[in-house]
C-alpha cells in the first residue's frame, strides 16, 4: 500500500438494486491533506464515505485507510478513524459532556482520560457553557459542533466529514469552516464531502468531482478551473434594455455563447486571455454608446467548472432564486 495516501479507494462498485450508487470510483487522499468530494445530491458521496468508514461493504473494489485494508480489518480501521455524518449523531437526552464521555469510554479510554478529553473538547468547540445541558436544547450549529467533537475524541489520524455544514446558516457555516481548518492543521487526513462548491474551494487541498457514481473530474481547485482555459468577464450595462445588443456585439470575443440576464443587464463572456480582451470590450461598447455600470475580470467559479464538465448546473439550495415572477393572466 502507498504510504503517502491515508485514504485509498480503487474501482469501488456498490449497487443498490438497479441504482448504481458507485460505478467504479477511485480516489486517493494524500496523508495529512484535505480531500474534497464534491457532487450533487445522490452522486454517491455518502455511499463512498460509509464504505471507507467500515459501515458498508462494497460489491467490489479495494479500500484502505491508514494503510489498513478496510474490508479485512474493520475493527483496526475503526481505531484510527473519526466519522461525523450528515445528521448530527449525538444523543438528545444526554448532555454534551456525557455524549463525549460516552464516546471516549467506547474507545476504551480510562474514565479519567475520557472525562478530561470531554472537557478539553467542550472548550475547543466553545461548548463549555452548554456542556451540562441536554443536547435537545442545542441549536443546529451547536449539535454539529458536538458531533464533530465526538468524531475526534480519540484523535483520529483519518477523519471523514459527510456534508458537515449542510443545513447550517451562513454564519454557522463559516464558523464550522474555521473549526475544520484548525482541526486539520495538525496533520489529520480529512475526507470531506460537500454539495457546496465554495466549501470545497475553501477547505480542500484536492477536489474529486463525483456524479452518478462516477468520478468526473479531479485536481486542485485551481487545476479544475484552469482546465477550462478561460477567464470570465462580467459586464453590467447601465441600461438593462441594451443587454441583448451588448451581447450580440461582444459575442465574437467570447469562446462560448455569452450568458445574459436582461433584467439586471448582466453579460458574461468566456475569454481566452481576459486582460487583453477587456480593452476590446470597453472599446466596442463605447462605440455603440452602451454605458458600462460594472466590469469584472475573474477566474471561473467551481459551479461553472461543474457545468462545463457535466453539462448540468449544480442546484445550490441557498442560491436558488425564489420564483416570484408575475402571474400571466390567462386570456379568456
Amino acid at each position, binding site marked *: 500500500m502507498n504510504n503517502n495516501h491515508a485514504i485509498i479507494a480503487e474501482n469501488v462498485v456498490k449497487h443498490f438494486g438497479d441504482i448504481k450508487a458507485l460505478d467504479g470510483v477511485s480516489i486517493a487522499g494524500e496523508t495529512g491533506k484535505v480531500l474534497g468530494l464534491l457532487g450533487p445530491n445522490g452522486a454517491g458521496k455518502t455511499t463512498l464515505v460509509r464504505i471507507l468508514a467500515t459501515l458498508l461493504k462494497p460489491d467490489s473494489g479495494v479500500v484502505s485507510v491508514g*494503510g489498513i485494508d478496510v474490508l479485512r480489518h474493520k475493527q483496526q480501521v475503526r481505531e484510527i478513524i473519526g466519522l461525523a455524518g450528515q445528521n448530527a449523531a449525538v444523543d438528545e437526552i444526554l448532555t454534551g459532556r456525557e455524549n463525549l464521555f460516552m464516546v471516549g469510554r467506547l*474507545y476504551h479510554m480510562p474514565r479519567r482520560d475520557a472525562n478530561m478529553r470531554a472537557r478539553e473538547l467542550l472548550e475547543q468547540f466553545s461548548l463549555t457553557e452548554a456542556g451540562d445541558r441536554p443536547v435537545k436544547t442545542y441549536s443546529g450549529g451547536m449539535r454539529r459542533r458536538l458531533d464533530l467533537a465526538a468524531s475526534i475524541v*480519540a484523535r483520529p489520524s483519518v477523519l471523514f466529514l459527510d456534508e458537515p455544514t449542510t443545513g447550517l446558516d451562513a454564519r454557522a457555516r463559516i464558523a464550522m469552516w474555521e473549526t475544520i481548518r484548525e482541526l486539520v492543521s495538525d496533520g489529520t487526513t480529512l475526507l470531506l464531502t460537500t454539495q457546496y462548491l465554495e466549501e470545497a474551494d475553501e477547505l480542500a487541498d484536492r477536489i474529486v468531482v463525483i456524479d452518478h457514481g462516477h468520478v468526473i473530474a479531479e485536481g486542485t481547485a485551481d487545476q479544475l478551473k484552469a482546465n477550462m482555459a478561460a477567464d470570465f468577464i462580467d459586464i453590467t450595462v447601465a441600461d438593462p434594455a441594451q443587454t441583448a445588443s451588448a451581447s450580440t456585439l461582444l459575442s465574437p470575443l467570447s469562446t462560448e455563447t455569452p450568458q445574459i440576464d436582461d433584467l439586471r443587464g448582466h453579460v458574461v463572456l468566456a475569454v481566452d486571455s481576459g486582460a487583453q480582451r477587456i480593452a476590446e470590450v470597453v472599446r466596442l461598447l463605447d462605440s455603440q454608446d452602451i454605458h458600462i455600470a460594472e466590469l469584472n475580470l475573474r477566474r471561473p467559479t467551481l459551479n461553472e467548472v461543474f457545468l462545463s464538465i457535466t453539462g448540468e448546473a449544480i442546484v445550490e439550495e441557498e442560491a436558488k432564486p425564489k420564483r416570484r415572477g408575475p402571474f400571466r393572466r390567462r386570456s379568456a
Partner: protein
Amino acid sequence: MTQNTFTATFSSGGRESSALQRLLWNFTDTLVVMRRNLYAYQRQPELIVFATIQPVIFLLLFTYVFGGAIRFSTGGDYINFLLPGIIIQTILFASANTTVGLAVDLSRGIIDRFRSLPMSRAAVLAGRTSADTLRGLFTVLIMIVAGYIIGFRFEDLGSGLAGLALAVAFGYAVTWISATIGLFVKDPEAAQVAGFIWLFPLTFASSIFVPTQTMTEQWLRTFAENQPVSVIANTVRDLMTGTVNPDEIVLSLLWIAGIVAVFLPMAVWRYARVASR
C-alpha cells in the same frame, strides 16, 4: 506532517487486541451503552410513569371487571391467577421499547456512530436489551406492590422470587426478538406498530388472563397451551403460588435459552449490516 499519522493516543492503534481484552470490552461497552439508555428513562420520567400506569390499569380492570366472571373457571382467587400473568404481559409489552428505541437510534444516525467506533459489536444491542429489561423489572416490582394492595400474596417468598427471576429472564430473551425486529423495520413510526403487533396474539392466546381449558377452538387451545408465553406464565404462576414443578422449570429455561440462541446472533448479524437509510 508524517509523524503521528497512524497512532491513536488511547486505543490500541490498529493492533489486534487480546481475546481476553476483547471479552472484557464486550462487558464494559455494554455497561456504557446501558447507562446511556437508562439515563433516557431517568430523564424522561413520564416514559416510566405511563409504562407503569398502563399495566396497573390492566391489573385493576381485569381483577374487578372480569374477575367475577373468570373466578368460576380458575377456581381460587383470581388475583393470584392474574398477577403472575400480568407480570408476563408487562414484561412482553416492555420489550416493544427495544424495537422502538433501536429504530430511533438508527434513524438519528447514532447507530452509525457506534458502528464506526472500535467497540464490541454486540454491546449496542446488549446495552439496549439489558436497560429495557431493568426497566421492565422496575415496572413489575410496582405491579407486585399494587397486587399486594388488592390482595395478592406470595405463597412462599423463595419460590415467588424464583418466579420473578424467571419472568425477568424471559423478558430479557424476548427483548432480543424485539431488537431483531427494530433492526429490520428501521423506521421509528413503523416500529411503534411492529414492536407491539406480534405480541398481541402471543399475549392473549395464552394462559396469561384465562386458563387455556376455557378456549373452545381446539387449534387455538393447542397453540395456546404449547406456546412459550403460556409455558412461562404457568411456571411463574406455579412458583408464585408455591408450587415447584421441575419439568416445567426446565422447559421454561429451554425456551429462554432457545430464544436467545436464535435471536441474539440474528440481531448482531443484522446490526453489522444495517444501514440508516
